[in-house]
């Protein structure tokens, strides 16, 4: 192995690329060549580092630079890499960089804990060796050598890991169902059709640590007795697709996928399947239909996928984030995992925090952090300086929490007891200047566009809600529109075919509870 | 018996007409004619009194009244303004006159002013085409070659007459 004097970890996730990461890299390479230190310093392209703009960490010092522009490179190379003097003006916040360089994984940015994002930002996602160096594929090796499938399932069950896709179904239980269904052919599907507006956590996991997903799928396959896996990625996620495909190829070359993995009897292959731009395909049965090459309309349940899924065979569908937890649970044990978070909500949760705030981005926090803490400590208040009006948590189909309810803790139990959900982990902060009707119209438009059209309440209901919102926005609504909308929402929640229609009404029901007065402003004077 | 209060209608004529007709077959239309002639219009309470008197359901009385164009339920004004809209008058601007009367009186054609003074009607040719456009009032006063400018004067004339 070659020795390098320094490693530069460069964030090359999508937002970074947008901020010009490619130009930074090119300039950097050019500079290194010019200074003739190419052989001493290695550039590692990685996923999100969790900062805004183009960011890099230079090891061994562990100094973080953010907001780098190509024109800064010359200075950086000369000062830091050649003269060993960190460039203060580009350095990220002092406290956090120390944590990172000290390798204290539990205490990152302001109360974050990184399990899922453990490697994101510290390894080159396109180099399997780096993943292996970070104990990668150790969990797979461990279960293949030491555990029976049943034991693996027990570990996952004991960890109390719950699905991170939104429904929060206990993962171990799901695996057990599939394990118990006898079939010569079973499938593992990784649901990477991340379509909930505001969420991009799965994208960043795939871009930053694709092997974690692959390893987890292999573990799952071993546990339930599957030999084939699919990763269903959104067609729009170009970089994710490329990285995942590369990772699969690499894993195959290292025999982490393929026949007789680790010289065991276990064989497992993964294929990537692309989505076509349909939000509903995030619903597991719609996703299965889509892989089968059909219109992505959800299927009747029962039978559920663990009994009869892809091509009629028992199938596990797990979310990317859920899977990314698995190797860590195997390596560190279920008790370790359970201790993170609070009772009933084990582990951490990745949130994407967005909207009118100072610090946008991806965070991973233990279950049980309060919304207020997220807003004040992590998001650091509104960027515009206006008062925050509400947070929309869980994506468009999630709940609207008005500012005065921000004390709520973001763990499954608390949320469920308030009839809320953290869904796919989006927290969108909306400030006062956005009118609720304007906001809801945009939500309505999304669902109108994305309803698959299979069942009546959702097909017609999403359309009608949009009509109502349009009217209210034009201040041409009627008072009875709002009560009719309430009835409609209740029916959609009760009677829609799948989660899309059932959850689509959440923000509207919440808004009608918390912002009824404001909504009424859309009512034309005198109209009943 | 006429009531002294001034608000009530003196039904004695109506009652007499009804009395004379009671028991005869198919008398309703004659009664309606006579009553309208005397009272000017078949208001709902007049219809009710006829219904009671003749022992014919009010619905039938009302049905008959609404069937025939001749009967009216709205009392006509003291002065019935009729504007001829026959061809000759029309080409000479009768419709302008109608618009102006509507405007000035604040009522639509077929209606009566609140003070009960004027009713506005349009009629087909009154046979005075050489004088077009023609306006008649109570079929007695005939105004020939009326121009919209004269309307104020005409109305004012009757108002004044009334005031006196």
């Amino acid at each position: 192995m070659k020795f390098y004097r320094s490693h530069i970890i460069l964030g090359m996730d999508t937002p970074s690329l947008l901020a010009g990461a490619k130009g930074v890299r090119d300039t950097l390479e050019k500079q290194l060549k010019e200074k003739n230190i190419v052989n001493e310093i290695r550039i590692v392209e990685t996923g999100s580092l969790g900062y805004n703009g183009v960011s890099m960490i230079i090891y061994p010092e562990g100094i973080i630079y953010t907001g780098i522009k190509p024109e800064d490179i010359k200075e950086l190379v000369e000062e830091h890499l050649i003269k060993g003097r960190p460039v203060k003006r580009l350095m990220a916040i002092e406290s956090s960089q120390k944590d990172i360089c000290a390798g204290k994984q539990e205490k990152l940015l302001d109360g974050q804990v990184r399990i899922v994002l453990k490697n994101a930002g510290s390894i080159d996602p396109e180099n399997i060796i780096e993943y292996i160096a970070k104990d990668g594929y150790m969990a797979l090796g461990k279960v293949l050598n030491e555990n029976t499938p049943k034991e693996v399932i027990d570990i996952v069950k004991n960890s109390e890991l719950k699905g991170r896709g939104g429904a929060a179904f206990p993962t171990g239980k799901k695996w057990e169902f599939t394990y118990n269904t006898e079939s010569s052919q079973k499938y593992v599907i990784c649901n990477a059709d991340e379509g909930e507006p505001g969420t991009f956590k799965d994208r960043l996991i795939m871009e930053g640590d694709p092997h974690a997903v692959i390893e987890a799928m292999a573990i799952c396959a071993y546990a339930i007795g599957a030999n084939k896996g699919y990763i269903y990625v959104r067609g729009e996620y170009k970089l994710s697709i490329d990285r995942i495909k590369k990772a699969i190829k690499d894993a195959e070359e290292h025999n982490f996928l393929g026949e007789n993995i680790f010289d065991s009897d276990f064989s497992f292959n993964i294929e990537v399947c692309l989505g076509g731009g349909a939000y509903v395909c995030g619903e597991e049965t719609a996703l299965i239909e889509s892989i089968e090459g059909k219109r992505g309309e959800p299927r009747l349940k029962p039978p559920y996928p663990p009994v009869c899924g892809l091509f009629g065979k028992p199938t596990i569908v797990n979310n990317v984030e859920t899977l990314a937890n698995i190797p860590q649970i195997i390596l560190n044990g279920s008790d370790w995992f359970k201790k993170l978070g609070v009772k009933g909500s084990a582990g951490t949760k990745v949130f994407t925090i967005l909207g009118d705030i100072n610090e946008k981005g991806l965070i991973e926090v233990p279950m049980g952090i309060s919304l207020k803490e997220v807003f004040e400590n992590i998001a650091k208040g509104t960027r515009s300086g206006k008062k925050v009006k509400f947070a929309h948590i869980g994506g468009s189909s999630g709940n609207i929490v008005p500012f005065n309810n921000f004390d709520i803790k973001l763990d499954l139990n608390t949320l469920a007891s308030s009839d809320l959900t953290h869904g796919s982990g989006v927290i969108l902060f909306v400030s006062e200047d956005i009118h609720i009707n304007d906001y809801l119209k945009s939500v309505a438009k999304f669902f109108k566009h994305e309803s698959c059209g299979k069942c009546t309440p959702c097909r017609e209901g999403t359309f009608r809600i949009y009509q109502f919102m349009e009217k209210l926005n034009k201040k041409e609504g009627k008072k009875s529109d709002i009560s009719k909308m309430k009835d409609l929402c209740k029916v959609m929640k009760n009677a829609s075919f799948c989660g899309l229609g059932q959850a689509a009404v959440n923000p509207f029901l919440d808004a009608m509870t918390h912002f009824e007065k404001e909504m009424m402003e859309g009512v034309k004077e005198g109209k009943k | 018996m006429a009531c002294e209060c001034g608000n009530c209608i003196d039904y004695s004529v109506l009652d007499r007409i009804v009395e004379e007709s009671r028991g005869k077959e198919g008398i309703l239309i004659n009664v309606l004619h006579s009553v309208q002639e005397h009272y000017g219009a078949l208001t709902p309470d007049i219809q009710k009194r006829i219904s009671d008197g003749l022992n014919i359901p009010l619905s039938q009385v009302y049905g008959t009244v609404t069937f025939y164009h001749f009967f009216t339920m709205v009392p006509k004004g003291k002065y019935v303004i009729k504007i001829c809209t026959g061809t000759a008058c029309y080409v000479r601007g009768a419709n302008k006159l109608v618009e102006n009367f509507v405007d000035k009186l604040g009522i639509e054609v077929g209606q009566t002013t609140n003070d009960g003074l004027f009713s506005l009607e349009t009629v087909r040719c009154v046979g005075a085409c050489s004088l077009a456009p023609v306006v008649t009032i109570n079929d007695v006063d005939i105004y020939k070659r009326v121009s919209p400018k004269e309307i104020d004067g005409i109305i004012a004339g009757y108002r004044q007459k009334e005031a006196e």
Partner: protein
Amino acid sequence: MTCCNVDVGKILKEYSEEKGNLMEILHKIQNSSKENYICDDCMKKISDYTKLPLNKLYGVTSFYTMFSNKKRGKYVIRMCESCPCHVLGAEAVINSFVDELGIKVGETTKDGKFTLEHCACLGLCAVAPAVMINEDVHGNLKPEMVKDIIAKYE
């Protein structure tokens, strides 16, 4: 066996007859087409190869927003208008595209270069408002940036 300049046969041969890869085939064929669509002829060939009845194939392409059976521009501009983008001013950006190109959403410019489409969340919320032009992403947009972006595509 080529049609609308897409060598469908070659693309199809890359895929086994095994089920489960229709979506990728469609993506690939559409991406190979200069006009960003799958023509009726290609549809038939796909149908023949995959043994999937033609009607179902059309059902699929019409279901997913990324596919089109109608000619589109060389560059498909997919504008996100989900809430995260919306609250940060996506509407003004979309309007700017509409104005700049002189076409409505869903239409293609006369020179066949651009097609404007609405789409649901692109997962670029960190840099909202964002659009995708073919496979490139553009984020943190402001209406005044639109002109320059369009100019980059020749």
